[in-house]
């Protein structure tokens, strides 16, 4: 029996092995008031992930060029290290710390309370209540969804388009979905929409189920849909890949997924984007000028380039898209999407 316990213990220890955290990179003399330092703490992943981390870092690099800031980043390798990585910058006297991604929200607010002299920019972190020193950079997902919905409605040949999303209980997901329906109906009020949320499972699974996303997208294509919008983390990625594999067109989400989903490039029409780079830069600039806005700061939405499909998009569609984008930006066109799921679940997708 002793041998057995040894085996079991060895296995359990092996299972719990975790990688060491990223080494802290020492910045320049940031504690001095005349030196303006900006640090980025990434979400789990690399700084050049061609997604959120990279977009935020590009905003910070812009601040280096335009505002003469000293910049540095820490790549998070484990979600347990969020606090520690933020503290590394804060202890060195960084003036602004950018934390990338919804998952760092709690750690960011906690750090802001601990380090009142540091400004925090939380990318994609909605602030339910205002914490002094924290600006949550959030995005009008409804506008991003509206843009790609309008694009899909103009490009469909069957008059049927689909959308595969994470759970609609999460407000940004709801806004993407509703915006998509609103945009499609703005172009063609009679368009047929297949909208499916992965609301039948818990929060732990709703965004990490690519197999479900792919099966759902294919089911829509069998019913005649020819463009699928995948919005919801890995679940949405599964839908994009599944749609392209089945010969339909797909639309990505959050960043230009042409770069994050190489296997879908040949059928990726566009992506509903959150413009992180200018948002981060604007907030850093505000911090430097002493006009840092606590609470939420709404950035801008956009649609990604057509890339490989550019030649298939007619000129009048391109012109119409630019017109809609402009109207959304200057406020003459409103999406009229509710900020979160309505009581009875009704909206543009379910009238």
């Amino acid at each position, binding site marked *: 029996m002793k041998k057995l316990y040894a*085996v079991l213990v060895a296995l359990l220890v092996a*299972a719990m092995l975790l990688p060491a955290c990223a080494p802290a990179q020492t910045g320049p003399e940031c504690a001095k008031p005349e030196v303006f330092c900006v640090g980025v703490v990434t979400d789990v992943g690399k700084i*050049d992930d061609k997604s959120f981390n990279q977009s935020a870092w590009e905003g910070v690099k812009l601040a280096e060029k335009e505002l003469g800031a000293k910049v540095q980043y820490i790549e998070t390798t484990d979600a347990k290290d969020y606090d520690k990585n933020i503290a590394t910058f804060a202890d060195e006297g960084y003036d602004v710390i950018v934390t990338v991604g919804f998952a760092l929200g709690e750690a960011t607010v906690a750090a802001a309370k601990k380090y009142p002299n540091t400004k925090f920019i939380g990318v994609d972190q909605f602030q339910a209540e205002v914490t002094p020193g924290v600006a949550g950079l959030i995005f009008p997902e409804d506008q991003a969804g509206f843009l790609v919905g309008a694009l899909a409605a103009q490009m469909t040949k069957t008059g049927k388009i689909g959308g595969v999303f994470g759970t609609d209980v999460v407000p940004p997901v709801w806004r993407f979905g509703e915006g998509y329906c609103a945009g499609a109906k703005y172009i063609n009020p009679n368009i047929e929409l297949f909208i499916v949320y992965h609301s039948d499972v818990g929060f732990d699974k709703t965004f990490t189920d690519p197999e479900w996303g*792919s099966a*759902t997208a294919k089911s829509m294509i069998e019913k005649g849909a020819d463009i699928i919008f995948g919005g919801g983390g890995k679940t949405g990625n599964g839908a994009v890949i599944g749609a392209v594999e089945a010969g339909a067109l797909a639309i990505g989400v959050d960043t230009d997924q042409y770069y994050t989903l190489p296997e879908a490039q040949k059928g990726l029409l566009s992506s509903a984007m959150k413009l992180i780079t200018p948002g981060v830069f604007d907030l850093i600039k505000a911090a430097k000028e002493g006009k840092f806005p606590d609470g939420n700061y709404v950035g801008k939405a956009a649609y990604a380039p057509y890339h490989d499909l550019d030649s298939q998009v007619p000129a009048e569609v391109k012109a119409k898209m630019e017109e809609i984008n402009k109207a959304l930006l200057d406020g003459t066109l409103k999406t009229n999407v509710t900020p979160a799921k309505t009581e009875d679940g009704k909206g543009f997708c379910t009238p």
Partner: protein
Amino acid sequence: MDWRRFSFIGFIIVFLFTVVVLIGGSRVSPTIIISSMLTTTIAVATPLTLGALSGVFCERAGVVNIGIEGMMLAAAFFGWLTAIYMNTVFKFDPNLSLWTGVLAAILTGGLFALLHAWLSITFKVDQIIGGTVINILAVGITGFLNRQMFFGEGSIFGGNVPHAPGLLPSLSKWLAPLCGGPEGCLGLPGLIQGTFLDQKPVALAAIALVLVSHYVLFNTRWGLRTRAVGEHPKAADTVGINVYRIRYVNVIIGGMLAGLGGAYFTIESVPSFEPLMTNGRGFISLAAMIFGNWTPFGAWAAALVFGASQALQINLQFFRDAIPPQWAFLQHAYIVGLAPYVLTMLILTGIIGKTIPPAADGQPYEK
């Protein structure tokens, strides 16, 4: 065969399909709805079917295996990793890489099962604990390696998840020369074509393996010995059957089936790996195995019920605005998602005949 159980299961599936046809029939033609739901049902049921078959082999030989989830997860990861390596490092042709990946997934499942067999047969560890070890080990190893290889400092692929060599093609693509254009294959009706020919190799293999498993378990000497060992190992031993050997081999066969189920996730469904991506399907397989009373056909039918309820849940959302107001509760996806679990519990209460596990299930054999 247990006709009451099968007619009950058949009734449930027909009922689920009818609900969707009644609601969505005005928007999309019923043939398309049925064909599409069948395709989804069979595809989604694939890992459940293979997982349940895995459970049938293990438990028929008297070894409880709750590690199917972990075996699938590990197989999904190592199969995917092998396919990538073969393609990017050894420059194999993409299709060959994928098939090597499938093979690696099967072997991974087999190796994890060997560990389970070693713990539970040789060391006579409590089999629930052994299965738990497998599950924890799989989560740890796949999460750790995934991060080390693709995200960590100085990782092998330098932070860029390499381009996966694609996905296994569907049968209709294999048959493309015979089919001659998009109209039809061999003049088969659209329903059959959409349901079966658009399936991919692992999904079709799962169906074939149901037939093979049934034959092996109930029509061969090996199957008889397996069942004997699972029911009364002492009696089997006295007539000269090597209980340990039979158990080892069946647990490993089970692991290989679970491994093939793992290949479905990363080689057939989507070309990427996510930590925890099996999302509890290994445990649902166990429910399907019990639901099917430890028989291959029963397990398959039960897996199809789970698949059909997912198809129902997806399709009801398509036709959300056509749901009549008195059925408004169907708009809540999670209520529909509950259906298979409620059914499993109903079946366990014995309303359609008792479910009877093998008598020596879960008991280590001591000479």
